[in-house]
């Protein structure tokens, strides 16, 4: 599509004109008193959407709020710039936003030639499968001979074929171009399985009359690590956004929640003491107040709380932690030691 080509041209130009904002972002953020956060304009259920009162909510939004809480002690010190997929990188490169948290996949080209620095992963997405529960299937390895509904011309279709070939299984593709039609085909029972990115499957399932009759299988067959990014040139700001993310993970690992964070200030665990600033040093290293992580956890919650609040099993999306569980629970979420 020509819109895509245009956006690409813009991005290439941006790289040529590489804005030199070395060290300036963090100072500028502190000076203006709020974080300008680029978020998904169209809305992605559970990640960045608006509630009935027009407030942005979601997993990505809470990461914006956590950064604001760590920098300013106030999770509300954030302004959102709604961005379309084509605009997002230019907005970051031109300095219109300070941080981009817009379900963006971490890839080599984006991390290098596009001039972005990914600060970590806040959601491991990937292509998944949904089946009706009455099929009795609980693992993708049991799908031999299944008919699979899939949209054509995407990497989704390729991944699907690769997965089945690699596992020496056969499948019958039902290829339908439009999203609502392919979903309709699945609902009508024209295929046993529907496949696309797991977060997309979850939001599709939440529109069903009986979502509990459909199961998202635990296997993900492609890598779509989504995470916040900042632009090249300000390592200090990069560190701040990166370690806010790690602090949320560390808090979950240590059992620190928004509710018990005050009690945790009394903890004798040296890691908790360093994280919450009882034992000073980390805040200074980052150029923040010593209670930076305390503020983020107190006002936004730890990673697990954020996850369960917006996309977890109790929400309409009903996603289980899967790859997004802590490493101690068999997931991929892992924070380097805070010391």
């Amino acid at each position: 599509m020509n819109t895509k080509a245009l956006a690409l041209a813009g991005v290439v130009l941006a790289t040529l004109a590489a804005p030199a904002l070395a060290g300036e972002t963090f100072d500028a953020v502190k000076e203006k008193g709020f974080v300008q956060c680029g978020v998904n304009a169209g809305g992605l259920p559970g990640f960045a959407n608006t509630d009935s009162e027009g407030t942005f909510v979601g997993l990505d939004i809470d990461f914006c709020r956590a950064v604001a809480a760590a920098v300013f002690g106030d999770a509300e010190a954030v302004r959102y710039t709604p961005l379309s997929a084509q605009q997002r990188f230019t907005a970051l490169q031109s300095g219109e936003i300070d941080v981009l948290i817009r379900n963006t996949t971490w890839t080599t080209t984006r991390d290098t030639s596009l001039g972005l620095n990914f600060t970590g992963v806040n959601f491991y997405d990937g292509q998944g499968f949904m089946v009706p529960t009455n099929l009795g299937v609980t693992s993708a390895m049991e799908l031999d001979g299944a008919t699979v509904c899939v949209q054509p011309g995407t990497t989704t279709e390729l991944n699907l074929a690769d997965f089945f070939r690699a596992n020496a299984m056969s499948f019958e593709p039902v290829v339908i171009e439009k999203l609502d039609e392919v979903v309709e085909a699945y609902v009508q029972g024209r295929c046993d399985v529907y496949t696309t990115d797991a977060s997309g499957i979850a939001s599709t399932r939440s529109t069903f009359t009986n979502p509990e009759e459909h199961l998202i299988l635990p296997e993900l067959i492609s890598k779509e690590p989504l995470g916040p990014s900042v632009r090249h040139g300000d390592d200090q700001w990069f560190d701040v956004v990166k370690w806010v993310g790690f602090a949320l993970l560390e808090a979950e690992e240590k059992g620190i929640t928004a509710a018990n964070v005050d009690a945790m200030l009394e903890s004798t665990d040296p890691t908790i003491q360093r994280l919450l600033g009882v034992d000073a040093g980390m805040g200074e290293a980052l150029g923040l107040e010593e209670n930076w992580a305390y503020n983020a956890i107190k006002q936004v919650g730890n990673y697990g709380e954020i996850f369960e609040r917006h996309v977890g099993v109790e929400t309409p999306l009903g996603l289980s932690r899967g790859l997004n569980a802590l490493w101690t629970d068999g997931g991929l979420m892992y924070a380097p030691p805070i010391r």
Partner: protein
Amino acid sequence: MTAETRDDPRPSPDFAARVAGSLAWVRNNLFNTWYNALFTLIIAWFFLNVLPPLFDWMVTNSVWQTDDPRVCRDAAGACWAFIHEKYRFILFGTYPYDEQWRPLLMVMITIALLAASCDKRTWRFIVPMWVAGLTVSGVLLWGGVFGLTYVENLRWGGLPITLLLSVVGLAVAFPIAVLLALGRRSDLPVVRAICICYIEMIRGVPLITLLFMSSVMLPLFLPTGVTIDKLLRAQIAMIMFAAAYLAEVIRGGLQSLPRGQYEAADSLGLGYWRKMRLIILPQALAVVIPPIVNTFIAFFKDTSLVLIIGIFDIMTATKSALTDPHWRGFFREAYLFTGVIYFCFCFFMSKYSQWLEKEFSKGRRH
């Protein structure tokens, strides 16, 4: 009215005669030829098959009020409760919830101004009227004075954005378009070349490309740290686009005038600008009212393209309302609601243009 006329002594036509009369009407109008009869039957069959289920969906089986989306999902009909839940978001987007009386007032002011502008008597002070109206609207939306809290324009959304983009877009584009049209027919070669270049360049690319240019490319050419407001960038792109199209419509009007009008103006000894203002433009613009309004209507709907640059006009807000994980899947209701709003504005414009045409053609009727 006097009592005599009401006590009309003539007998009212009796029932049989009336039935015979309407049967005759049906025969003459619906079944006068075999193919008309066929069309009548096909259309009647179509309505009989479509209307009852539609009525059931919209009224009989619909859910009007509930806080629980599951009640809606179980119902066979429309979920108007979704609109009830989301109408404020669709209309006003991410504008702070407690302050939404401000955009509401702004919309009412704009509609009142539009309605007032329809009356010929207000035309003498139309410019100050709009300047005052838009200033008040701006103060209302931005705030920061008179005890109103400041609301940055990234948070504006919904109908005010759609109205702002289209009304300001057209209001600013129109005078530019007149100048461009005159420039294109000018005797000065440089002016003519510039106008032709501008018009053809803008008309040669889709609006979506212009919006992309303003939103994605422009920031890269500016010195670092300098950012022009996103909404302003979109507004400028819309103005540039509308000006080029309107210019061509107006040029059509200019060309339709007989040569004699120009010569008559010259023979009166009028200068160029007075000739245009007093003689040529009033006639040329009157001729092209229908195509101008056509452009207006198309432009009003084109504002929904700002969706792709992440501005919360009413269309973006509608789409965004549909992404609330608790209220997923009620897209029929949402788009119907927004469609009705678009229809009201466009229908009003086309009705007004018909009236305007009649007004202007009065002088030319022989």
